């Protein structure tokens, strides 16, 4: 089976869905790029990370739409197009930019169906980049997925592999509800086996990354790989980790998490987001409410600190949860 990077997998998912359904369109800043430039070169960017490269020549300007830098107008236009029959995939280049357009996402698109008594259908996908690690500092490095997860009416996806990225994005595009699809900017070159055929992975179904008996680790997106690295370290010490990647934060595969926690009696949640009212705290609360009597040790979380993302590489490295930190926390609760 062919190996593809997450970048290639996302591109393939977009192309296959655009091929299948003429209602699927792409909207965003520099999703093609080059429009109006002096060189006449089209598709100059194909997205700032090259994810949408090649879609413009294939599907044309009516379906791959470069916009001004106007995030509210982009998100609103996508929401309005969705509720009137298209299936837009809108790009919010960096998730940090939600601050200039959140109204259109959480007050408008997310609430249409409920506010209108079930009479609206909003098949909208918002693709956006999260994650620290590029020294892109405080306004281009955040992982604000918890804020989106908080909003009823949104579904939130955080793929950790190329296989998942393709299947989850196809599901997102076919889904009739608004979906926010977060891509971790450090994972684009990660490759694994991806079928060439289209396939959809249902939301709310965790991936069981590895089996273990001593401690459950729940992690998302890039943190799945950090947690796996920690699990490798711990395995050499005789500690076996049950590593669960829920894939989507909303809906959340609560059953799989609780089933694992009841079996291992220990839970560590690893999240790149900030700790207060965050995803890690949310999952810790879930286990405390529903699996308390199975716990052999305190639930622990490993997250970014309650700070903005710093610029200096050494500070940024200290900000991002590391395998060593995860392993240390596990050792503490194994004592």
């Amino acid at each position, binding site marked *: *089976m062919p190996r593809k990077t997450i970048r290639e997998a996302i591109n393939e998912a977009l192309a296959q869905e655009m091929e299948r359904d003429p209602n699927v369109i792409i909207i965003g800043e520099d999703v093609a790029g080059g429009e109006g430039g002096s060189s006449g070169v089209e598709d100059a960017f194909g997205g700032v990370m090259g994810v949408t490269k090649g879609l413009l020549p294939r599907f044309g300007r009516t379906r791959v739409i470069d916009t001004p830098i106007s995030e509210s107008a982009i998100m609103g236009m996508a929401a309005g197009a969705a509720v009137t029959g298209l299936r837009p995939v809108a790009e919010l280049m960096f998730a940090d930019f939600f601050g200039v357009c959140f109204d259109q996402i959480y007050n408008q698109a997310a609430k249409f169906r409920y506010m209108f008594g079930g009479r609206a259908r909003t098949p909208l996908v918002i693709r956006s980049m999260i994650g620290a690690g590029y020294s892109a500092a405080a306004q281009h490095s955040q992982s604000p997925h918890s804020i989106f997860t908080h909003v009823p009416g949104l579904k939130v996806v955080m793929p950790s592999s190329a*296989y998942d990225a393709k*299947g989850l994005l196809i599901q997102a595009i076919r889904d009739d509800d608004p979906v926010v699809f977060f891509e971790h900017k450090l994972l684009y070159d990660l490759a694994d*086996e991806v*079928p060439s*055929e*289209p*396939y*959809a*992975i*249902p939301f709310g*179904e965790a991936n*069981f990354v590895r*089996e273990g008996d001593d401690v459950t680790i729940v992690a998302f997106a890039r943190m799945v790989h950090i947690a796996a690295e920690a699990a490798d370290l711990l395995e050499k010490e005789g500690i076996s980790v049950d590593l669960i990647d829920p894939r989507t934060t909303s809906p959340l595969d609560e*059953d*799989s998490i609780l089933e694992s926690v009841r079996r291992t009696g220990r839970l560590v949640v690893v999240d790149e987001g900030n700790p207060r009212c965050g995803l890690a705290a949310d999952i810790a609360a879930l286990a405390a409410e529903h699996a308390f009597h199975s716990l052999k040790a305190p639930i622990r979380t490993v997250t970014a600190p309650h700070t903005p993302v710093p610029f200096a590489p050494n500070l940024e490295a200290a900000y991002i949860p590391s395998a060593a930190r995860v392993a240390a926390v596990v050792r503490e609760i194994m004592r």
Partner: protein
Amino acid sequence: MTGLHLVTMPKWGLSMEEGTLVAWHRQPGEVVVAGDDLADAETTKITNTIEAPAAGVMHRALVATGTTVACGTPLAVIGPAAATGAEIDRFLSERPDSGPDAAASVPAAAEPAMVEIPDGDGGTARIRYLDTGSGDETIVLIHGFGGDLENWMFNQPAWSQAHRVIALDLPGHGGSGKAVGDGSAAWLATIVGALLDAVAPGPVHLVAHSFGAIVARHLAHARPERIRSFTAIAPADLGRVSRAYVEGFIGAKRRSELVSTTAMLFADKSLASRDMVEGLLRYRRLDGVAQALTAIDTANLRADAADPAAVAWWRAIGSRGLLIRGGRDEIVAADEALVDIAGIDTLDIATAGHMPQLEAAAAVNARVADHVARHRAGMSGSAA
């Protein structure tokens, strides 16, 4: 010193890259005969037994229990009792695949090929198949409902040692295209026939499992000149097929739903591993699979009892037919009326479930090899 045999970590299935030696059944110095269980090896998907390839003394165990090694890595040396330590050292040192870089020097495993077959409706069907081994006889392997060519991972390597073996993915399955026409076994048989015309002209030995046996029967019936022998493992048309299984398999979207369904396939429930279920889930998620499986189910798997046409077929085929069944099959409930179809050569494996080719690979491998040998070119005419 001749007569020394090297036992290596096998490659079971397309994705296996390494295996863990979980137990030695024999110790150095013990006498073995061909087919004796030597060791158990485990992949993330499945656990199976490695057999002695020849009779002799097991001279060396080269890998400790619990060790994970690449496919092709030497595990043991078997040979005449008289072989000396020096001779064995020399034998190992002369083998290109026995040094520290053993895995790298193992010949690349066969990769499946794709071929476009006219589908009879003006289009084409894309078929994936795995072509291994060589010899005068060709064995064609047809998997069952929801299966794929990897269902033969324990069998194809064994039979490939003496024969050409072609395992295919039926339309709607594995890496083949997902269009299945009207879903009937007859339509699928036409495609399989066209595939064989394209890649394997001349008579073949059909070995088919479960629903695949219905396809094989239609093929053999339509193209009798192409068939030398006919082996059916747990054929789906000689009894009632479990609705719980079929509907569970088609309907399962989530992992938890598929785990119990998959376990129905085996007497040993532990064989339904996480990786096996994950592989089935990945197949089930592909576009077109749900429709393909539904069409096949509707057209073929709804009967309450054995298909009279199948019974008649078995009566007619005579000694050319071999019927293999697992005594703990939960998928196909054998029809009481069929307990003895006169003259049928039967291998009943009491301890196996619906997939004896996985659960009792050694017994199935030996019996089918014997069946093929008895019906090889020149031994008899074509099937009924």
